[in-house]
């Protein structure tokens, strides 16, 4: 089926060329980082994780969100999602690949990465995260590819895929729960030491992931013959609206606990993010933008008239997506390190090489996504030709 990605319009190849160019820039910048060390990034002794790990965390959420399509379709027989379930699975595949790459580029000694397998350590959450992420990648790749292959031949998917589909549902929840546990179990980081972390992660994931999926569906409608159907798009948009509402609600719970209890270490990171601390205000603009975008997005998506307006819908979804990205892909990880365990403040801003590497990884993910979507759409086109011709 992969050969279907080898023939396409001029626009398709131009897009692939742009991605390949960005990958080349990212890769050559990575070689520089490999030789000189992570010193070329903005990370420091105090803020020891930055853009890479934040993107990893955010993308685990995008990957997990495939269940928001799978659950209605497979468990509740919501047929309208039949066309897009494959898009959700392939989005998960591309996201997990990016997650793995973001972890890899963050390592100080990448050639030793297999030490994680050579010395398996069940008391480390990182060990479990590796297992759930690689398992999730395999599950989605197998389910998506097999279902599509069967569809091409005009058969229902083979029976052995069914159990994998059911396993993939709790598995998706597990990848984001385990990722939250990376942070939520650390004794000295008050901003992360919260029982609601996994719930927040899932809520923001189920908002950002489907938002991206709908944007992709709307793009595909313009660029290809694929039409997800407005009913399934509306259903997904409602999922986004309520998941984002839950996400904002959970965040407000954190604010209440920190400020009503008035415990300094719990207040300090939130203060830093939204108001700045001791004159350091690096993320204040971002965080308020996120807050405004979140409320605007929720408002537009809950209100039926704006949600059903397909001119407004992409902006509402983009607002939610960007808000979730700032919250998780920037504020949550960096905020956890500020102030440091001694109560001192070191700010963080990514450097250009770091941004290029990040863009390179995103381009790899987009290339994988492009190829997989191209195959899926070409198979569908072939089917409709066979049906009509």
């Amino acid at each position: 089926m992969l050969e279907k990605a080898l023939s396409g319009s001029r626009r398709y190849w131009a897009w692939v060329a742009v991605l390949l160019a960005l990958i080349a820039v990212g890769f050559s910048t990575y070689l520089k980082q490999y030789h000189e060390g992570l010193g070329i990034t903005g990370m420091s002794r105090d803020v020891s994780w930055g853009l890479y790990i934040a993107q990893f965390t955010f993308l685990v959420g995008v990957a997990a969100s495939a269940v928001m399509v799978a659950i209605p379709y497979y468990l509740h027989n919501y047929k309208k999602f039949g066309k897009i379930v494959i898009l959700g699975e392939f989005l998960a595949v591309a996201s997990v690949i990016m997650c793995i790459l973001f972890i890899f580029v963050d390592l100080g000694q990448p050639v030793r990465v297999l030490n994680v397998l050579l010395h398996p350590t069940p008391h480390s959450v990182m060990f479990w995260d590796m297992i759930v992420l690689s398992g999730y990648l395999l599950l989605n790749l197998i389910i998506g590819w097999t279902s599509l292959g069967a569809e091409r031949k005009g058969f229902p998917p083979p029976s052995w895929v069914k159990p994998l589909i059911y396993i993939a549902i709790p598995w998706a929840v597990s990848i984001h729960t385990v990722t939250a546990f990376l942070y939520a179990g650390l004794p000295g980081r008050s901003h992360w030491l919260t029982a609601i972390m996994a719930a927040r992660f899932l809520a923001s994931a189920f908002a950002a992931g489907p938002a991206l999926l709908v944007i992709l569906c709307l793009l595909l409608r313009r660029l290809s013959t694929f039409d997800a159907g407005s009913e399934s798009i509306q259903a997904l948009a409602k999922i986004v609206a309520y998941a984002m509402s839950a996400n904002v609600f959970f965040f407000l719970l954190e604010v209440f606990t920190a400020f009503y209890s008035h415990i300094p270490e719990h207040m300090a990171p939130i203060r830093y993010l939204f108001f700045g601390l001791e004159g350091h205000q690096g993320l204040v603009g971002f965080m308020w933008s996120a807050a405004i975008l979140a409320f605007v997005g929720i408002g537009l998506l809950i209100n039926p008239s704006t949600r059903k307006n397909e001119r407004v819908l992409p902006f509402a979804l983009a607002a939610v997506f960007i808000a979730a990205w700032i919250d998780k892909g920037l504020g949550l990880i960096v905020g956890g390190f500020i102030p440091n365990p001694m109560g001192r403040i070191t700010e963080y801003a990514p450097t250009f090489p770091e941004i290029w590497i990040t863009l390179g990884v995103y381009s790899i993910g987009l290339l994988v996504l492009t190829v997989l979507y191209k195959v899926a759409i070409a198979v569908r086109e072939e089917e409709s030709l066979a049906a009509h011709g």
Partner: protein
Amino acid sequence: MSVTRRRFLKLGLTTLAGVGGAMALDGFWRGSAEASEVLTDQKALKAKHWAMVIDSDRLKSAENVQRMIDACHRTHNVPDFGNSKDEIKWMGTETYEHAFPGQENGYLNEGIKEKLFPVLCNHCENPACVRVCPTQATFKRPDGIVAMDYHRCIGCRFCMAACAFGARSFNFRDPRPFIKQVNPDFPTRTKGVVEKCNFCVERLEKGLPPACVEASNGALIFGDLDDPNSEVRQVLATHYSIRRKPELGTEPSVYYLIGGGEEHA
């Protein structure tokens, strides 16, 4: 078609398992010559739980503390990058407010408020860094020392996020050009690994006390917390002591005597 494919897969898997098993066995048997063994050195200082008591009253000036830090950093080839972003330190200094956050008040005795307290790895009994390390590159030895295996560290920095005391540093760059004078008896580190205080395990093995203790003029007391007759136990039994962030339950093995300016024996 399907029969041959099945046969092929079966054969392939069996071969893989066989090769893997053989490699594992090979690695297991080879490498140790017959009848050889490894022992601990007779000269080595031994303890069930190494601990340190820092008598802050004896640290009269910032120079006293700096001398200890220099001794440590020279001994262990700790580089000086000259900037706080890439900084590596095994021992540093903090004021009371920052070393013991949450314990300060607005009316502290000036002497304590201004004093620089040495801060280092606490060699916790329940170390969060050891719990999170995905490769056991950082691990707790039976004598209580939280040690690091720089050969194994993949540089994921999970331990730095887990440490509640800011005791860990990462080699953001190749440290070698930034070591003023290399101590040939101790290795340097390479870029991309995390490092921290090792309670001078390499000196204890040779029967020597830690370098900072030696340079402290008696301000640092080092010994076995499990031995009721040890000096650390005697000092802790007769003085009021505190530890950093005890509420987190990591059980630091570094104790601070804060006497408020009185002299201690």
